[in-house]
């Protein structure tokens, strides 16, 4: 996750990159995505929910959405000339009854 598509960009959830020194701060970067699964999987998940437990289709969907949001955040960071994103946070919000938004944000920095 820290190194995506050949571009070496570090991503951490801590305030600093452990073991490196921050030389420049490039501001807050963010990425978000809104996704929905097709109806078939929705019905299948509904059936699995009778007994309860993990709904893998939704777990995968949200995992993919988070990866996408993170990817967009990293692209913004790369665009600003940063080589690391620190203090990354994730947020989920239900914007309508039909869809959820996944948001990833952090501070783009240049580390030594």
């Amino acid at each position: 996750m820290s190194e995506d598509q050949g571009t070496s960009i570090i991503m951490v959830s801590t305030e600093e990159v452990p073991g490196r020194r921050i030389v420049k701060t490039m501001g807050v970067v963010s990425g978000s995505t809104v996704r929905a699964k097709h109806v078939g999987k929705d019905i299948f998940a509904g059936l699995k929910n009778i007994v309860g437990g993990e709904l893998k289709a939704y777990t995968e969907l949200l995992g993919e959405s988070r990866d996408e949001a993170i990817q967009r955040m990293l692209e913004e960071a790369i665009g600003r000339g940063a080589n690391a994103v620190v203090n990354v946070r994730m947020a989920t919000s239900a914007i309508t009854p039909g869809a959820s938004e996944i948001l990833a944000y952090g501070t783009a920095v240049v580390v030594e």
Partner: protein
Amino acid sequence: MEIWDVLGLLFVFLIILVIAFFVFFGPISFLISMIFSRRKHRKMIDDVMDRVSSTVNEYGRDPLTNKKNPSKNEQISEAKMIQANFVLGPGWWNQWIASWHTLFGGNISSFDDVLMLARQDVLQSLRDQASEGGFDEVVNVRLESARISYLSAKSSKYIDVFAYGTAIKYANSNLSD
């Protein structure tokens, strides 16, 4: 004429089947949920706890902390963010019990179980990722949960539990990976 009789009978039979399905589906599903859900969730929790104890044994301690800084003041060779999520369907039985509890209040122990299952599972996924990547420690671990809503308002019963943290590898790692 005979063929139409047979077809007519088949048609009536089909309609009865469809009606029976809609009439009995709910009660039967509810019974299945009542009988099996608690047992299934306990078994899943036991499985996760076994995995947790085997990872803790492998490390000699729990590699996850929610402290901001690494526990050792040593040189760090690699740091990266890791994450895991788990979408939980609480099950019809739990939903029913929970709706009754809103009348009387109190602790819903079967709901506690499924939420604990989800939290332990995501934390264990972080431990697994740390162990696979040969990381020594995961710091700044955070847990979040949200109700998700995709396509239908019905699916907003599902709970997404999400955990993330920063995995750290020390320069002179004492893990043999």
